Every structure is written in C-alpha cells, then in structure tokens.
C-alpha cells in the first residue's frame, strides 16, 4: 500500500510539473525515478525508445512501465493515474471556466492571436516529423540522408488521405505494412 501511494504521489508530482509536453520533462522524470532507484539511466533511455515506437506519450509510458515493474498491473494503474490526475483537475476547471468567458471580447482577441500561432506550432511539429521520417540520416547534405522507401510511403499516404479520404487509423496500418513490404522487396 505504501509503495502504491509513493508511485501515485511521485507521478502526480511529475504530472504537475510537466509543462509544454514532449521531451521537456525527460530531465524531471529521470531525476525522480533514478533517485528512488526505480530505474537506471539506461532504463530511462529504453523507455524513451519504446515511447517512440508505441502510441502514447513518454510521460504516461514511463509511469506505466515503472509502476508495472514495481508492483504489477495495480502499480502501473496507480502510477498512470497519478501522472494524469493533476492535469485532469486543472483542465476540467479551465474547460468549465472557458465556456463562460470564451465569447468575451478580450478572450476573443487573445484567441485571435493564439489561433494562427497554434497553426505555426503544429506546422513546426509536422516539419520535425517529416524531417525525422524522410531524412533520418541527414547530416549537412540532405540528399544523402533521404530515405526513398519512406518517401514512397509518405507519397502514397498523402495521396490516399487527400484523394480517397481514408481514415487516419487505416492509414497508419497501411503505412506499417508498406514499411515492412518495401523492406522485403526493395
């Protein structure tokens, strides 16, 4: 019971101090879990790799992984619920308040500035994903780093979404299959 509490509280703390998402919080997580000897630094790097290859964010994945290793499925649940609890409470409060203020002229003017900026942020994330997917080995000379198989998958996927409007989930499954097929045939 004490370990469950500690898992929940430690990850609640990590969840509370995770602002900005993504890899910004890797140092915080690393510090908290290596200090408690839950995992070595190599273990943390493994979780980062696993997070890259599975759906779901690193923060959640590390909570689940460490929780399960410490105390099985119940431990995993305690740590995972811990990491999402603080933001859940905050987001619900903000969502409730937002409904009341969203038509106020001041809020609308702030949002009119935020909307294009968010498009810029999403575009930036898209750019990094494209770069990482299509030019994984790019160091200086981009042409040398091009992954032609990935470019082919990218082109097929883009065409399928724009022309055939297929579901994003189906697209992911097809992309995975294409990745394996191209590896076998090309």
């Amino acid at each position, binding site marked *: 019971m004490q370990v469950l509490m500690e898992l929940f509280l430690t990850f609640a703390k990590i*969840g509370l101090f*995770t602002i*900005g*998402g993504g890899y910004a919080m890797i140092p915080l997580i690393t510090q908290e879990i290596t200090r408690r000897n839950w995992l070595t630094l190599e273990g943390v790097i493994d979780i980062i790799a*696993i997070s*890259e*290859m*599975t*759906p*779901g*964010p690193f923060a*959640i*994945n590390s909570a*689940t*992984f460490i929780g*399960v*290793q410490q105390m099985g499925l119940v431990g995993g*649940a305690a740590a*995972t619920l811990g990491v999402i609890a603080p*933001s*859940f409470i*905050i*987001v619900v409060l*903000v*969502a409730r308040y937002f409904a009341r203020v969203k038509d106020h002229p001041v809020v609308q*003017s702030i*949002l*009119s*500035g*935020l*909307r*294009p*900026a*968010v*498009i*810029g*942020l*999403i*575009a*930036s*994330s*898209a*750019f990094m*994903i*494209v770069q990482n997917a299509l030019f994984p080995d790019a160091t200086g000379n981009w042409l040398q780093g091009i992954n032609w198989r*990935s470019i082919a*998958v990218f082109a097929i*996927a*883009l065409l399928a*979404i*724009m022309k055939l409007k297929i579901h*994003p989930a189906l*697209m*992911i499954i097809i992309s995975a*299959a*294409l*990745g*394996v097929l*191209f*590896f076998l045939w090309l």
Partner: protein
Amino acid sequence: MDTKTIRNSLKLFTVFFRIGVFTFGGGYAMIPYIQREIVDKNKWIESEEIIDIFAIVQSVPGVIAVNSSTFVGYRVAGLAGAVAATLGVVLPSYIIIAVIAIFLYNFKDYPFVNEAFRGIQAGVAALMCHAVYRLGKSSVKNAYGLVLALAAFLALTVFGASAILVLLTAGVLGLVAMAVRSIKTRDKKGR
C-alpha cells in the same frame, strides 16, 4: 446523469480509445483523428474550437494528448465525458506498455518492428501535413494571421523557442491588435 450524457460518454470512450491506439508521434499527431471523429463525424465541436483547445491545454501542466482529450470530453459531456475521454486515450498505451514491461522488454530488437515503425513515421508525416493544410485554411484568415503563423513556426523550428513563450506572445499580440482596432474606430467616430 441523463441517458444522453451516458451515451455520449460511452462514445467518447471508444472514440478516444481508438485515438489512443493510433496516436504515434506526440500530441499534435492526434489532430487528424480528432478532426475526423469529433468534428466531421459526430459534429461535437467545431474545427475552430479545436484550435482554441490546443492553445489552452498547452498552457497548463500535463501532456498535450491527454489534456486535449480531457478538454474535448468535458465540452461534449461534462465531467463524465472528461473521465471517459481521458481513460479512453490512456488505456491503449497502458495495455501496450504493461505487456512490454511484463513480457517483451526488448521488443525493439524484434525483426520488422523497425521497418513497420519507419512506415508508420512516414504515414504520420503525411497525416500531419494534411492536418496543417486543413486547419490552416480554417484558422489563418488574413495576412496578419499568416505572418503570425509563420513567425510562430520559425520561432520554434529555427530558434528553438518554447511553445509556451510563443503562445504568450501571440496572445499579447492579439490583445494589442484589438486595442489598435478600437482606438481606430473611436477616432473615426470622433470626427
């Protein structure tokens, strides 16, 4: 709880469970799914509000993917909706990671996992490009918006600025633009 809330919450859970299964590549990568399931298919929320939600959830603690699920769930079906959407989006990765932690710690060494993942990355890249194009059409409406979007993109991509700093600046710029507009209209009325 009325039956409509329960029905919507159950639907939110299944929709966000699916989103949780297929969200590779971070919080923004779920936008194409939200667009498809929440905006186009169920018409729970408008396209423009999705952008507002992503702006807001980044400014509070937590993971973008989970926060936006909580927010969308709350907007659709209140507290029950928020719980349903949040658990739905987290459960797939909980199951996957638990299996990896118990049975196949070194799953990244398995043959084909790498190749399948290469393919998935390229597919996600295509999804993201399409999402930027679609959302840009609905949220960037004039030259001012285009300049702001470009500036935000460059600040992050080229100068490595923090997303929160970019959002704060954009919010202030929005306020300034409103103040300038209201001064202009007052001047016109004054004459």
